[in-house]
């Protein structure tokens, strides 16, 4: 247990202190955006991972990221709500929608669920194009930067527009959200709820027969998952200050799923590591110009051949053959 806390402490120290210090020292300011992206995508992947945990392959997280983004954008530009309020609103809206969608489709399993979530991403994009509240094809642009967050008149977070370095602020925001999300995820997995979810992953009928309310559990897990998706989408909108129906597409949904696989489905930190490796790896490979995709995909295939259970299975001493 002590070792775990030590590891956690080292991780927190690294992301909150070491990274900013190193970036300041090396002058690589562009890394902030890359790491911010990694953190935000990792939040979305955490949600996908949770659906994997109940035995569902979720290729629809892009849909919720897009929804979350639009909720935040619409609330900010049309209602004038502060960005900080739109964050939980985006997450809750996605969770609500996911309950409605999840009730029927969570009855599906295996590839059926996987494929219907893939279609869901496209449905969301087409809805965003067709609706008027989303401004259709023209998207929503010129969204203001996050304003100041005040509680009882005390400024907790200053206005992003007045900051000298909004990049750092966005990074800290994204990383904080990521740490909170993973803490929540860890808490869920190691609670009674987590054990019940695991029973769903192994044998749903058996779980149901011994009195586990499987339908309720599935929808709950899916709603939490979608909450994470909406959250990550909302912050992305704040960074790009714009959103279009194509801001999150089928590719993103597939990527969210791949991040989970690469990191390892058996580990809470898996999606975070997977996101980091794949996203950062792609960026590093940009030096290979036209061979970038070739090398990236070869590496992915090789990784699969060597470590089919994810990178973190390297540290899994108990793991044997299936």
């Amino acid at each position, binding site marked *: 247990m002590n070792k775990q806390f030590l590891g956690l402490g080292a991780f927190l120290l690294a992301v909150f202190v070491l990274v900013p210090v190193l970036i300041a020292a090396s002058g690589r300011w562009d890394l902030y955006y890359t790491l911010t992206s990694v953190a935000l995508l990792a939040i979305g992947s955490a949600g996908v991972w949770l659906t*994997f945990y109940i035995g569902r*392959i979720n290729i629809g997280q892009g849909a919720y990221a897009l929804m979350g983004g639009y909720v935040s954008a619409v609330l900010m530009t049309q209602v004038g709500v502060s960005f900080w309020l739109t964050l939980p609103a985006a997450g809750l809206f996605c969770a609500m929608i996911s309950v409605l*969608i999840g009730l*029927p*489709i969570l*009855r*599906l*399993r*295996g*590839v*059926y669920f*996987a*494929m*219907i979530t*893939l*279609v*869901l991403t*496209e*449905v969301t994009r*087409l*809805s965003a*194009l*067709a609706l008027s509240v989303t401004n259709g094809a023209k998207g929503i642009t010129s969204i203001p930067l996050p304003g100041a967050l005040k509680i009882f008149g005390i400024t907790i977070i200053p206005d992003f527009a007045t900051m000298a370095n909004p990049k750092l602020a966005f990074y800290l925001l994204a990383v904080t959200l990521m740490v909170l999300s993973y803490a929540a995820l860890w808490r869920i997995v190691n609670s009674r709820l987590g054990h019940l979810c695991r029973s769903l992953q192994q044998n749903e009928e058996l779980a149901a027969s011994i009195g586990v309310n499987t339908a309720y559990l599935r929808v709950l897990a899916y709603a939490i998952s979608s909450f994470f998706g909406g959250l990550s989408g909302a912050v992305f909108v704040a960074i790009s200050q714009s959103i279009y129906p194509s801001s999150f597409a*089928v*590719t993103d949904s*597939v990527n969210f*799923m*791949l991040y989970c*696989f*690469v990191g390892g*489905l*058996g580990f809470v930190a898996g999606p975070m590591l997977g996101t980091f490796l794949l996203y950062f790896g792609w960026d590093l490979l940009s030096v290979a110009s*036209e*061979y970038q*995709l*070739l090398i*990236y*995909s*070869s590496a*992915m*295939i090789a990784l*699969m*051949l060597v470590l*089919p*259970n994810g990178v973190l299975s390297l540290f899994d001493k108990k*793991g044997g*053959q*299936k």
Partner: protein
Amino acid sequence: MEQILANGLYLGAQYALIALGLTLIFSLMNVLNFAHGQMYVFGGFVTYTIVAQWGMPFIVGLIASAVMLAVMGALIEVFLFRPVIRKSKRDESTMLLAAGIAFFLDAVILLLFGEKQRGVPKIVNGVFNWDMRLIMPYDRILIGVLAIAIIAGFIALMQYSKTGRAMRALAQDRVAAQLMGVDVDRYSMIGFALGAMLAGLVGGLLVTITGVNLGMGGPTSVKAFMMIMIGGAGVISGAIAGGFILGMMESIGLTVLAVYGDITYLAIFASLMVFLAFRPQGLMGKPWG
């Protein structure tokens, strides 16, 4: 009305052929082949290179596409899927591999064939025109007929040959088939090769009508997924039904809903989700594929 039905039939024939290969691979190995669309594109480019660049007859290009993709499929099964399936703890892990292969093929296609849209000259000229009620170019009719012939040939192969029977046995119950002396490794390889070959054939056929470009792979896979969902994953007849149903839905939807703006696909996708909510295993699928 005749025109809508004819369009739907033609679309359905090509869709069904695409879905067949995907569902075959799925039924044998429980692998959702994300790279199916890329294989289709690859087949198209092979035919294009042989027909348009080297000036050989169309049929040579088509056969070359089929052979090339069959070999590629066999190699992918033996060297990539087989070891991963053996080592991984969860079946889904093959999805990452399939996606990796899809990216890989995308990269190879970009490097080998370039980024431009390609097409081969029309193989038959002229348009069939029945009193303006039904208009269908002859090359489209030819491709449609060829597609249906290939589907029929494939069904015959599955029904009556030893290979076909072995593969059906494998699809029904892998363990039982193994116990009955079916060489699982061998027929998995043949099945994957056959599935990839079908993708190559469609690519070769369609390059004469729609042409081919490197971006078609991913969306084609997604479309094929939808078809096998409608029909039921892993069921040959389901894939064919799914293909024709989607073709008809597009043809009718695009005509009827055109006045309402861009909602045809939204309507198709949404009705698909509703349909699956009521019938999770598709039209003909076994529950939980």
